[in-house]
């Protein structure tokens, strides 16, 4: 990466973050709700991207972890406990369950983790629906309070959006650090070549479980934001289709790319809203758009960018080679 490219990237980052802060200021209630939802879903998709994109394990249970986080937040905050307490419970719970659920993945080949997590996802939904004493069953939990952050109430949509955006920022920084740490490198080694990773002395068992557990814990974080966002939760949003949606977000955005989940969540949350003018057709068009995108670029949106940059780099390199060659020829 050249120095110029680096500054360009930093400038672009500042513009995007500035836009995310300033532009929504005069959005209406619904627009802010959708943007907050985007931030929450991005966090969940980032967790899945760690599991899938970096460590190469397919999980179909991310939606269930969002559900566990959301129920932890809803149950605890309606009892008067602070959201931060719910957050710690959700993270610990999701991490532990993710860890246990990862064990079958160690025993068998990778697509079986998808099957186990699929079963877990549906089991979790059944528990949300049937355990009335804890989750109030199909009636759901209403009047979930929004938190006070450092003395500021976030009851109104705009402050709560900033709260979600801030959480997304913190999670992004932590993730940025994680994938550059030795752990992150170990995760990538795991995806690229598990046998070689093992022979290099990486404890593949522990790292597989770790990637899955951390990814699941981020699902829990997203859930603790989701509950105060909607202020009412019932089991329906946390069925299998949420897990499938999250998986779609990661793949469509570009799995294994840091910014993949951001774009993927944008497509999954915002594109249907933009297509709403087509009325009944919007989800259909969304499905067709996803299929066309995947046919065109199976590595997702960032895959297109990646290919374009790689092609340009090769072109530049070959041009450079041609110049050097002609110079050498004239010199001789």
């Amino acid at each position: 990466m050249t120095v110029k490219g680096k500054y360009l990237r930093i400038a672009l980052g500042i513009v995007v973050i500035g836009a995310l802060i300033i532009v929504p200021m005069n959005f209406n209630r619904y627009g802010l709700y959708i943007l907050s939802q985007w931030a929450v879903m991005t966090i969940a998709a980032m967790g899945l991207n760690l599991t899938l994109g970096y460590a190469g394990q397919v999980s179909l249970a991310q939606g269930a972890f969002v559900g566990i986080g959301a129920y932890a937040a809803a149950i605890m905050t309606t009892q008067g406990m602070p959201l931060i307490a719910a957050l710690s419970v959700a993270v610990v719970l999701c991490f532990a369950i993710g860890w246990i659920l990862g064990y079958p993945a160690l025993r068998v080949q990778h697509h079986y983790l998808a099957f186990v997590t699929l079963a877990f996802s549906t089991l979790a939904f059944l528990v949300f629906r049937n355990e009335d004493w804890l989750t109030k069953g199909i009636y759901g939990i209403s009047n979930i309070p929004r938190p006070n952050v450092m003395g500021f109430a976030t009851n109104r949509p705009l402050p709560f959006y900033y709260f979600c955006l801030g959480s997304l920022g913190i999670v992004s920084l932590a993730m940025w650090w994680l994938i550059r740490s030795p752990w992150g490198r170990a995760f990538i080694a795991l995806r690229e070549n598990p046998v070689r990773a093992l022979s290099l002395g990486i404890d593949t068992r522990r790292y597989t479980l770790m990637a899955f557990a951390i990814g699941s814990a981020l699902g829990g974080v997203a859930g603790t934001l989701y509950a105060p966002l909607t202020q009412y939760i019932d089991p329906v949003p946390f069925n299998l289709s949420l897990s499938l949606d999250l998986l779609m977000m990661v793949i469509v955005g570009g799995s294994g790319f840091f910014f993949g989940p951001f774009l993927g969540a944008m497509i999954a949350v915002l594109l249907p809203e933009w297509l709403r003018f087509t009325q009944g057709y919007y989800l259909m068009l969304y499905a067709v758009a996803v299929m066309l995108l995947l046919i065109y670029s199976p590595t997702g949106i960032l895959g297109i960018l990646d290919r374009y940059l790689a092609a340009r780099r090769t072109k530049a390199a070959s041009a450079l080679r041609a110049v050097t060659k002609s110079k050498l020829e004239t010199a001789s």
Partner: protein
Amino acid sequence: MSNLLDLLVAGLATGAIYALVAVGFTLLWQTSQTINFAQGEFVMLPAFLMLALMHAGAPFWLAIILGILLSLLLLGLGFKLLLVDPMLRHGVLPLAIATMALAIGMKEAVKQFFSAEASPFPSIVPAGDISILGRVVSLQSLGVLALAIAVVIGLTALLNRTSIGHQMQATAQNPTVARIIGVPVERMILLTFLINAFLVALASLLITPIYLAKFSSGEVLGQAAFIAAIVGGFNQVRGAIAGGLLIGVVDNLAAAYVSTQYRAAVPLVLLIVIILFRPQGLLGRPEERTV
């Protein structure tokens, strides 16, 4: 005891339908590594095609024939040419995600162009009960069971007794070698897609009279077939058949004896236990595609 017999018959009947769907599912996996998350919607659609034809004035028998032909065209040929072929070489996962999107698209299309309400669907087996050995058994259950068994036997015979069947199996087991010894691999893969389309159309015809035609009915069915395929053995046709029957029976027994609330959990727990202790499925071979 008498109750148990009824449950078994009803369970075997739904199980036989699951088996049809699961067999198609495993066939696609074997010949072209396609995990079809839209398989449930594939079962949902043919019933609506037939209903649409009947609304257009076609008699029931004609609607069935045309509906099956349309399914072969759309869910067999169209699915393979438009979605699977362009994506296959990029690996299992993007294609699996694309079939998820396809499932959403199909559900929404039916909801938009047909109806969001459940529609009744005529049964090809006359309603009523007959008594066997002094027991009253629903004619519909028996008819469904008989038809599904006939199809499964026919399919097994096709796969194991005919030259085309052997070529298909060769394609599934090792496409490269199959190509070398002169098997038209491409045509065999297309054939499995057509067989899958035929099986789902048939399953649609059998199950829709029982559960009504609804745009969302594929979700439960697809998952049941998926679980059946894994429990029975992902890489074996007879595994999928056994898995389908087992899930059907277990599901019905669980509804009666465990609790209606957690009936859906029983097959899932079975799935997890199977994966932990016998990951290749009850009748499957261990997978050799390791690295």
